[in-house]
């Protein structure tokens, strides 16, 4: 369950900022400077020195990534979606516990295997005063599924709509969506799409729309200073939001400001100085030092991203299942989660996080047994085999802990840290043998992660794993509407993967945020979205 923020009641926010440095503060500052030389990261240091609060009836959010566009069709970034979702609504939305509920759609029905009918809510206004209709829904989805539909460019979000082939406005408030093959997770995947006003986009053009958007969401666009901030203000004529996510009505906050602050130490400093009220992506080693500060809190919830150690099944030594099994017996992820990730992670026995549909409770991680690992390696003739464990700098500590465990169990492991832009093509070309990486599954449907990672030849299949049975089960599960049948097939896939071990599974990290305790009614979400509709400040 997400940790709810705002339970602490400390309300001396009206105190004026202290304008002179006291002797004690000077000494603690000096101690902080000395500590800079010894602490593991600058982020930890920054986290150790702050206090103070935010201001006004607005709220400021420190984002971990830059915002490159405000056009909901032209990005593939979770951070961008977290921002634009406050300007735009979708046909459907997710509650904080990830249930799919109607938003702009009043209801929907499956007409046949390849046809869906959505009834659109009436009396919904865009920020420019125009009414939202089925034509806007068709226009919005057409921009995504039609090649080169956005100013001559194609939407990078097309893949998220799978086999959607045609959208037809069959009435003022009725839309029919057709798919080229059965697509049972259409409502889940529609949570990633937002509805834009067709007339406005046609009038101003796609490029201007991306800079100055108009939506129907709880906040309207005010200002975007590129690389600096995006400012939104309350839309008083908001239709109220999802009935499934009460309370309804306009937003509480007068203003929301999003500031991209990619450097983690600066992001934490922004929180502690009161410039930001919520910050994304707090490293687990900085949690304690934020919590120590008055009026500062840390909020965490299970994430949807699976970290795993991929084992390349196409090249030695991991083309031998005994070596892959040995690697699984060689590691004990629990102490790593506790010590390296500060307990902000969970060990999982497969690629799915426990919150995902059809998660297999019957599977368990391989028993931690070094002698068994060595024995398997000996039988495979690979005892003390030398391998490189590839990773990115963000997971370096995790990889080093894993390498230490593997090295005690008959592997000779060296960690190699890469930038993802360099590592990705090597993994895609199946040129690396062991790698610690991760894959997101924001829809919480297995399709979203099992297909790209383990179906033959898919774009995220860096292990080179190939199984006709798994391929067939995934195709079948993805085109079957019956949830029980889907669950059964996905469980079979999990069992096969567990037995054939193309990877060491796995770690589900939590989403960690730093929050000023003046923020009320906000809790983190597994999908990383930042809906500000119900949030208020004390």
């Amino acid at each position: 369950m997400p940790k709810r923020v705002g339970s602490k009641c400390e309300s001396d926010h009206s105190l004026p900022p202290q304008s002179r440095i006291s002797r004690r503060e000077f000494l603690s500052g000096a101690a902080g400077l000395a500590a800079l030389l010894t602490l593991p990261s600058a982020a930890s240091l920054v986290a150790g020195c702050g206090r103070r609060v935010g201001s006004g009836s607005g709220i400021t959010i420190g984002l971990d990534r830059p915002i490159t566009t405000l056009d909901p069709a032209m990005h593939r970034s979770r951070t961008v979606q977290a921002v634009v979702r406050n300007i735009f609504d979708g046909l459907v939305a997710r509650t904080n516990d990830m249930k799919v509920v109607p938003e702009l759609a009043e209801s929907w029905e499956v007409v046949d295997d390849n046809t869906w009918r959505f009834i659109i809510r009436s009396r919904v206004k865009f920020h420019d005063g125009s009414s939202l209709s089925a034509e806007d829904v068709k226009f919005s989805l057409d921009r995504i599924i039609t090649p080169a539909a956005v100013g001559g460019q194609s939407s990078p979000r097309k893949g998220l709509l799978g086999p959607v082939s045609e959208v037809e406005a069959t009435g003022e408030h009725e839309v029919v969506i057709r798919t080229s093959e059965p697509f049972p997770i259409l409502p889940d995947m529609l949570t990633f799409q937002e509805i834009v006003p067709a007339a406005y986009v046609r009038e101003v053009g796609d490029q201007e729309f991306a800079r100055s958007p108009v939506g129907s969401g709880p906040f309207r666009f005010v200002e975007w200073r590129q690389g600096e901030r995006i400012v939104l203000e309350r839309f008083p004529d908001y239709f109220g939001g999802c009935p499934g996510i009460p309370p309804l009505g306009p937003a509480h906050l007068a203003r929301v400001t999003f500031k991209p602050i990619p450097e983690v130490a600066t992001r934490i400093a922004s929180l502690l100085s009161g410039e930001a009220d919520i910050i994304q992506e707090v490293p687990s080693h900085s949690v304690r030092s934020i919590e120590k500060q008055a009026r500062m809190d840390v909020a965490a919830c299970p994430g949807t991203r699976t970290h795993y150690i991929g084992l390349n099944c196409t090249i030695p030594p991991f083309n031998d299942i005994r070596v892959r099994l040995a690697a699984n017996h060689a590691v004990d992820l629990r102490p790593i989660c506790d010590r390296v990730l500060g307990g902000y992670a969970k060990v999982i026995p497969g690629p799915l996080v426990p919150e995902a549909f059809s998660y297999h409770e019957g599977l368990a991680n391989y028993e931690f047994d070094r002698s068994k690992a060595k024995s398997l390696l000996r039988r495979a003739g690979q005892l003390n085999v030398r391998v490189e464990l590839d990773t990115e700098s963000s997971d370096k500590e995790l990889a080093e802990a894993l390498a230490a465990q593997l090295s005690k169990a008959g592997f000779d492991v060296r960690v190699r840290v890469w930038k993802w832009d360099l590592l990705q093509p090597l993994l895609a070309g199946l040129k690396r043998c062991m790698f610690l990486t991760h894959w997101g599954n924001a829809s919480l449907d297995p399709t979203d992660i099992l297909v790209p990672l383990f179906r033959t030849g898919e774009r995220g299949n860096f292990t080179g794993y190939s199984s006709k049975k798994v391929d067939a089960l995934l195709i079948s599960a993805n085109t079957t509407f019956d949830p029980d049948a889907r669950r059964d097939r996905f469980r079979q896939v999990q069992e096969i993967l567990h037995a054939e071990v193309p990877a060491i599974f796995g770690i589900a990290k939590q989403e960690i945020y730093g929050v000023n305790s003046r923020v009320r009614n906000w809790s983190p979400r597994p999908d990383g979205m930042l809906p500000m509709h119900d949030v208020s400040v004390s």
Partner: protein
Amino acid sequence: MRLSFVSYRLVQLLPVLFGVALLVFLMMHITPGDPVELMLGQAGHATEEEIQALRHEYGLDRPLHVQFVSFMGNAMRGDFGTSFVHKQPVSAVIAARLPATVELTAFALLLAVAIALPLGIISAVRQYSFVDKAGTLGALVGISMPGFWLGIVLIIIFAVKLHWLPVSGRVEYGVGLDHVTGFYILDSILTRNGAAFWSALRHLALPAITLCAAMCAVSMRMVRSSMLEVIRQDYILYARAKGLPESVVVLKHALKNAMLPTITILAVQTGLLLSGNMIIETVFSWPGVGRLAVGAIEARNYPLIQAIVLLYALVYTGLNFGADVLYFVLNPRVRTR
């Protein structure tokens, strides 16, 4: 004579710019990395057809030489293509960020000169005095401290602890700054907006101080050593013997000659500020071209990288050209050659 010197130097710029463009183009394409895969990220599904369609749209499926010729041809007409990530013309993306970088660099440069020049002169005139020793120590510290470290320390002291200065950004929301040139200090002066001027100045302070630290140290040492060399010359002794006031001797006769090597160093250092910007802009979330470049490289955003590097090369070579011209103007010996 002068015109031929200037035109000769200008013509020399062209092969340099072409070479830089070619080198960057080759290096970016030789280094592994797929812009489409990086854009799609480590999540979700995308079919091979969709990926190939995007590659085709970005022109990545064309032979390298065709891509380069097309880029250069369009670049010469001022069209640098469309940013893969921003989905906007590259020139518009850079134009939105350039004023922030220019403002920061100019402010850091002014600050560095304002500190380095008087300190360097005093250190030379009063060699081994307290000011000289303190200046030498300060220069050593300034050169030794990495920008990202100094930036974080300044943030902790002045933003987190003292709350005197902001952590990031260029201007507060709500000060009503109208966009005229994109240079916030200048805009606030032009629109006579005192609140915006103060806010922009406060936001500029920490990144500018961090950026100028190393440049200030190098320039100060250069002014000092040049001045020391000059004030021992016979013509300075002669000026003193004529009974000229010491201020005239130092500022008119000595400084003018000591400035020649300093100008070269300043030009080179200003170019280096651009690379320093990448780090400082990241630390302070300064919305400039440096931070844009870092993001572009990570995303293999080829059109944006090429345009930014070309811009940097143009600025760098332009600065050197400017220094050469200034050298030519100030130094009669070069002029008469």
